[in-house]
């Protein structure tokens, strides 16, 4: 079962986990990404996540499908936050349940790595005196 959500309200790790709970799972691996100050030495006031929503959802779904096929995952849940976040808030939660636990870790690592490359979501750091789109420039 695949569950993909793009939400502008705080993410719940428990909710994401519940989507993948299965008596047949040997283990569930999760990744939780929180927003942090990416730009050293400047104090971030807030972060803003902007998504090209329909395509972001579609790309996250593709990742979940790949994980299901390649790692024989029983269930995959990917929840991503949008809108304004404070430092320390959860930006993304990925949960993968597989029959064998080693596969769950590999699949979860693949999912977050791929999400960071392919899903059209952009993070802007807002400072006291300006703002920066994260990773825009080399």
């Amino acid at each position: 079962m695949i569950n993909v959500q793009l939400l502008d309200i705080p993410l719940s790790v428990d909710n994401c986990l519940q989507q993948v709970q299965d008596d047949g799972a040997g283990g569930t691996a999760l990744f939780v990404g929180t927003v942090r100050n990416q730009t050293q030495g400047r104090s971030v006031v807030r972060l803003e996540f902007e998504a090209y929503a329909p395509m972001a959802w579609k790309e996250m779904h593709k990742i979940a499908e790949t994980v299901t096929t390649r790692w024989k995952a029983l269930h995959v849940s990917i929840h991503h936050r949008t809108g304004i976040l404070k430092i320390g808030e959860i930006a993304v939660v990925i949960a993968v349940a597989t029959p064998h636990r080693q596969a769950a870790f590999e699949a979860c690592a693949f999912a977050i790595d791929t999400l960071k490359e392919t899903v059209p979501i952009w993070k802007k750091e807002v400072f006291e005196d300006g703002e920066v789109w994260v990773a825009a420039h080399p």
Partner: protein
Amino acid sequence: MQLQLIAYGIARDIFGHSQLAFSLKKGQSVAELKQALIEQYPEFDRLASLRFAVGEEYRSNDYTLSENDEVVIIPPVSGG
């Protein structure tokens, strides 16, 4: 031909619009759109990457654009 360009993130800042009609010669590709955009907005060339989507899918450089295509400019993503 007329394209509808949609810009997110830093691409919107560079482009100056979130949506704008853009003219290209008939039958031109994503590579040619990219070239035309960079000529008009040199800032695009300074990005770590610049991709384009049509129909909610990434399209490669050789993808041929069509009249009225809605083309989304995708600057480097930073989700997660």
